[in-house]
């Protein structure tokens, strides 16, 4: 899936969908913000006041070049840099599968954000299922291009798994937007089978920490 260029920044399809969920001028926390190009894009597109969390020193240097505020931090640890409800929205794009404790991170996201928009890679996608069924091997796809032994994706799940985890954590899913390429009709009907990833908008904020 080719990234598109907006204002000179490369944006993935799931990020373009996430952007649609965000209010202009809002305060957004991007967890695992990489080189900061998504936050720079949001700044140009919607005047969003963003901040990123990123673990890599070289990526932080790129964020600084993009003029994006970023804090060095580890998503496997509590988000001690952020107070309760201190962001209008917390964004996590294709990153949850790389974290050590996805459930704890979701709790932290619910704590610091009024809402959350999360794009989730779907391991239940047809091509994954077929590779496992027909070849008997761990799937390798465009969005998950790694071999099983060297992948950073240590917690893969299906869209169904993600919904169940949200239910367990009492996080209400407000909206689901499947990211579709080829079979858009099918993907909208059966996202868990036909959408390679999906953007979830979660209600978070005060109701959830009691």
């Amino acid at each position, binding site marked *: 899936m080719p990234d598109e260029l907006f204002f000179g920044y490369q944006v993935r399809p799931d990020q373009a969908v996430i952007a649609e969920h965000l209010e202009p001028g809002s305060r957004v926390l991007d967890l695992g913000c990489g080189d900061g190009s998504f936050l720079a894009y949001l700044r140009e597109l919607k005047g969003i006041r963003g901040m990123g969390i990123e673990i890599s020193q070289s990526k932080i240097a790129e964020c*600084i070049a993009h003029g994006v505020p970023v804090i060095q931090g580890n998503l496997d640890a509590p988000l001690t840099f952020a107070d309760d409800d201190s962001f209008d929205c917390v964004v996590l794009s294709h990153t949850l599968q790389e974290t050590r404790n996805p459930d704890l991170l979701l709790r932290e996201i619910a704590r610091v954000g009024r809402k959350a928009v999360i794009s989730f890679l779907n391991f239940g996608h047809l091509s994954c299922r077929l590779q496992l069924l027909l070849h008997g091997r761990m799937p390798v796809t465009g969005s998950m291009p790694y071999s099983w032994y060297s992948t950073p994706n240590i917690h893969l799940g299906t869209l169904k798994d993600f919904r169940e985890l949200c239910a367990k954590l009492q996080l209400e899913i407000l909206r689901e937007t499947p990211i579709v390429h080829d079979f858009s009709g099918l993907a909208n009907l059966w996202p868990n089978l036909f959408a390679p990833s999906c953007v979830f908008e979660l209600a978070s904020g005060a109701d959830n920490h009691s």
Partner: protein
Amino acid sequence: MNSSEKRLVEPRDFYFGDGEESALELDCGRKLYGVNLRYETYGRLDASRTNAVLVLHALSGDAHVADYHTMQDRKPGWWDEMVGPGRPIDTEKYFVVCSNVLGGCSGSTGPRSINPQTGKRYNLTFPVITIRDMVRAQKRLMEHLKIDRWLAVIGGSMGGMQALEWAITYPECVRSAVPIATTSQLSPQSIAFDWVGREAIKNDPHWAGGDYEESAPNQGLATARMLAHITYLSDESMKNKFGRELQESEHYSFAFQRDFAVESYLEYQGRRFVERFDADSYFYITRAMDYFDLAARADGNLAAAFRPAQAEFLVVSFSSDWLFPAAQSEAIVRALLRNKLRVTYCEIASGYGHDAFLLEIETLGGMVRDFLRNQLREVHRAG
């Protein structure tokens, strides 16, 4: 670089505070009259006067941040790799100002200056100054230079403390701040090191209660410097630099002269330091750091202490710095974020210890270069 390529800079003096009105009011409650600040500038102030960057030096630094004073100088200023044409703090883009701190011994008024009221050296009758007093004096220099707002205030270690102080005390004068390898509060461990350093000076027979004249307490000062210098390095950097190498012989001397390379190095550092530094100044500057505690002004609440601040921040720490460890920078970052300020924080991986802020020029310099460029761009966009 051959000598024909050496860029020269001329130190200047700014004198103020002769009268009752213009004297410098200090945290201790006293007033300082007839204050001189030694400073140097690099680059040109643009027509809008918005491209001024204030560089703040650490304990043993001075106003001479870059270039050379004379063609004969062997070494350039203390942050020459960072400041100059095409360097991270690019003097083709920015007007760079650096002054020797109040209480210093490199041209600015300090304990060895003449007290205009007595005609004698102050020595230990010089008022005990604070980091905020240093910044107050720099504010006078800023007014003298007719600058309303610094594009950035940048400093490492004690320079970082001044950068934080600037952002709190004169928020409208600081567009951005870059505190590097610093802390908002000197730890008891650091206070302890300062104390032992000053004790070494006091125990030098030449100290004379600070009233030394012909022979200075150089042995004590050198010992203080050797002790402090250990805190600027790391276990790793000392292993890499010296190991257990012997300096002059293949064998142990089985005596107490210096055998090891690391001993020889420290001795050299101590000897060099006393050539350019003064024992009484060492008292005053270390004391200013001991007293530095931003949270204390807001009942221990660091976030409340930063409430006045408006600047955008780039906070940098170094992984092997055990004098002002990363956790102390992270506390600053949390307090800044609590005030909804724009903050960027990076802990740079480095084995050099506290001194990394002088040595990790490539990584640190890249970040500072890009940060400044964006600050200037935003000024132009707004203006």
